[in-house]
């Protein structure tokens, strides 16, 4: 009796927790509403299955628990029932997989008009780079990294001279414009993660990964690292500011290009040291 009640309580409490939980995803700030919708759909399907299984177990425990003289029914197989259950499961799985794959297709298909923004991770800070007037980012290589040139840009590449380099500062993005984020690292794996944008991708030293999204509301959002990158992983923070086009351009005007920075830079590279806490 008690066991059955506790099992039911576990199922009910789980559902109630889900409904009343104050811990829920952060308000969306990108175009990835579909991802949220797919999660919601998945919650409905899996929640129903979970409740049904546990409730059925509780029923069995209550109804068929041992009493004097009870004897179990000898029932080795029921092919028909097993097939029906398999088919039902397959339908449920397909109902979750199909929207998932459709949204994934959107996720990996970058729209043609997206502006490129580069994010570079290193232990344990973020740097950003925006294309200059020519609209193109210059090449880069970890071998070029120096105190003068912390992002390792190729000094001989004309396309890179007008690139806007942002060190130790926030990244600003214009509202409503699709952005293709190019992700790069010069030491270990990192992961550029802004919970409000939902999107996420590892950055791998030696190659460039990417994802895209469109910011859909203004505000300041926290950047975290979502791939273990060493001792100060948890302190690797930055901010993304999404703002109206006009404010964005005002901000952009104040930023300096790679050409301006190289030569006159005397700011020592700020790195966290191990005992930085």
């Amino acid at each position, binding site marked *: 009796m008690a*066991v059955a009640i506790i099992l039911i309580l*576990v199922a009910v409490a789980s559902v109630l927790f889900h409904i009343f939980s104050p811990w829920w995803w952060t308000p969306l700030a990108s175009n990835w509403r579909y991802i949220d919708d797919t*999660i919601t759909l998945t919650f409905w399907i899996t929640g129903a299955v979970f409740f049904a299984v546990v409730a059925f177990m509780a029923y069995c425990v209550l109804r068929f628990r041992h009493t004097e003289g009870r004897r179990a029914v000898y029932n080795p197989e029921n092919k028909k029932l097993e097939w029906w259950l*398999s088919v039902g499961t397959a339908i449920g799985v397909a109902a979750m997989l199909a929207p998932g794959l459709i949204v994934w297709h959107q996720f990996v298909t970058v729209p043609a008009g997206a502006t490129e923004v580069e994010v570079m991770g290193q232990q344990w800070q973020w740097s950003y780079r925006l294309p200059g007037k020519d609209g193109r980012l210059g090449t880069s290589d970890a071998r070029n990294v120096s105190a003068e040139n912390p992002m390792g840009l190729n000094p001989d590449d004309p396309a890179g001279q007008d690139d806007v380099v942002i060190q130790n500062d926030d990244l600003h993005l214009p509202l409503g414009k699709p952005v293709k984020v190019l992700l790069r690292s*010069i030491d270990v794996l990192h992961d550029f993660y802004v919970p409000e944008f939902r999107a*996420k991708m590892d950055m*791998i030293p*030696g190659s460039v990964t990417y994802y895209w999204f469109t910011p859909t509301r203004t505000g300041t959002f926290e950047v975290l690292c979502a791939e273990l990158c060493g001792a100060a992983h948890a302190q690797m923070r930055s901010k993304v500011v999404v703002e109206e086009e006009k404010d964005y351009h005002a901000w952009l005007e104040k930023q300096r290009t790679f050409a301006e920075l190289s030569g006159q830079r005397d700011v020592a590279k700020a790195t966290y040291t191990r005992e930085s806490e």
Partner: protein
Amino acid sequence: MVDVPFDTVAGVPPAEVGEVELYHPRSWWTRYVFSQDAKVIAIQYSITAMSIGMVALVLSWLMRLQLGFPGTFSFIDPNQYLQFITMHGMIMVIYLLTALFLGGFGNYLIPLMVGARDMVFPYVNMLSYWIYLLAVVVLASTFFVPGGPTGAGWTLYPPQAILSGTPGQDWGIVLMLASLILFIIGFTMGGLNYVVTVLQARTRGMTLMRLPLTVWGIFTATVMALLAFPALFVASVMLLLDRLLGTSFFMPTLVEMGTLTKYGGGSPILFQHLFWFFGHPEVYIVALPAFGIISDLISVHARKNIFGYRMMVWAIVGIGALSFVVWAHHMYVSGMHPYFGFFFATTTLIIAIPTAIKVYNWVLTLWRGDIHLTIPMLFALAFIVTFVNGGLTGLFLGNVVVDVPLSDTMFVVAHFHMVMGIAPIMAVFGGIYHWYPKVTGRMLNEALGRFHFWVSFLGAYAIFFPMHYLGLLGMPRRYHDIGETAFVPASAHDLNAFMSVAALIVGFAQLVFLFNLIWSLFKGREAGGNPWGAASLEWQTPETPPGHGNWGKELPIVYRWAYDYSVPGAAGDFVPQNEPPAGVLAQGAHP
């Protein structure tokens, strides 16, 4: 009429007296220490695994203290926190669960359940244990070397794992890799035994389709482990060379703390592919034995045959095979080619179907049963609840685009603890309460057992169920302290504190369990040979605990499957596998 594959074998001649090449211990040392008896090796494996598991349990307390009350415990710094999570994960997955299920349960149960006198290669079996012990010692030694154990996370991803920004870069990572290599060598020796014993040493009448599902689970898991561990071996050897000899298998051109290293051109993703080609089957290496054990526990304690035995066997084999083509679902956001996502999401969700069939068949076994709420049965019920919960959240993470916001958050931590932490541990506990009487001849204490069960089950659920919601909120994993973060409300910190308190209580209950194990060894109620009235072969030994050679003079002959409970027309409510048909079958009630 049901079509069942397990009808009687008529007129089987008596088995020969199998006195062949059975190893005989000559002294105390060879009987209890350097023993070649699978039962002794099983106990050695179990004790070693549980001892190192206790270390991992203590590490989890330290982690939870830090997460629940950040800043309060000054003796835990960020480096140590990373070392704790790494060692906790590695120990629990490989050195505890894999070793306990295959080395512990496998060694004890396979020969008894298939009706063999011992494993087929007892000497190799003994070596397997000693190499495992060496691997554990090497692993434990990293706590005492300069720099401490590695803090690279149990996935040991390069480049981070072997660079100076990660704790344990000097000795920790080297010894960790060495220990893994040793473990794999030792496991291969044991695994050969388990596979060949199941294939070659079954007693007369024990067809493959009469094996208890526990044997099927352990057998399939062993085959998978034999094929999957080489991937970890390859990855470990190559990473070790990168670390020690400066090769660049996995290491690209990179800057280490402001200095350009000599590495160049390597591929960190290659390591991830190798790691997860091992890592995903590993999940099922832990899950399949649990599936098998749970099937047997439910059947015995519900006094009812397992429902859909053949489907269960095919589901185990199918899951085992499928688990080799889903590995990259751990790498959806790793930067691999995005089109892999379509393939791996599909295979991953397909695996849900055989898994769901198993769950249906467990609950349908309960249905119209005669359910004895013994402690093993309680653990089996808890297994189903936690496994279903964790399995369903797997559908979130396997569905590629849903994984994007959730990967590397606490949602993942909650998911895998539920599905391959709590659920298999419930199976381990259920199995121990169930077979302890066979191993020792005494029952475990009932009251302590119920206390242990309720605290472990409800407590673990209270830790890991709410944890999903922290992940949903966006809280990343492997953070020693989330700190001041705009999107994390104060209540999330309270929830963390609550989970930590629950973790301490659950941990305490495990001490009660250990006490019960030792206390009952001396003071437990005498169990007799078959306290649960179970039909499978291991309960039919002439002696309890089973003597050397298991079966006395004659090997048993098997006439039916292991699940003849409550057979219509039979006298008792179970028919042992080795009971000759004439005595039981009244009027051909058995199909």
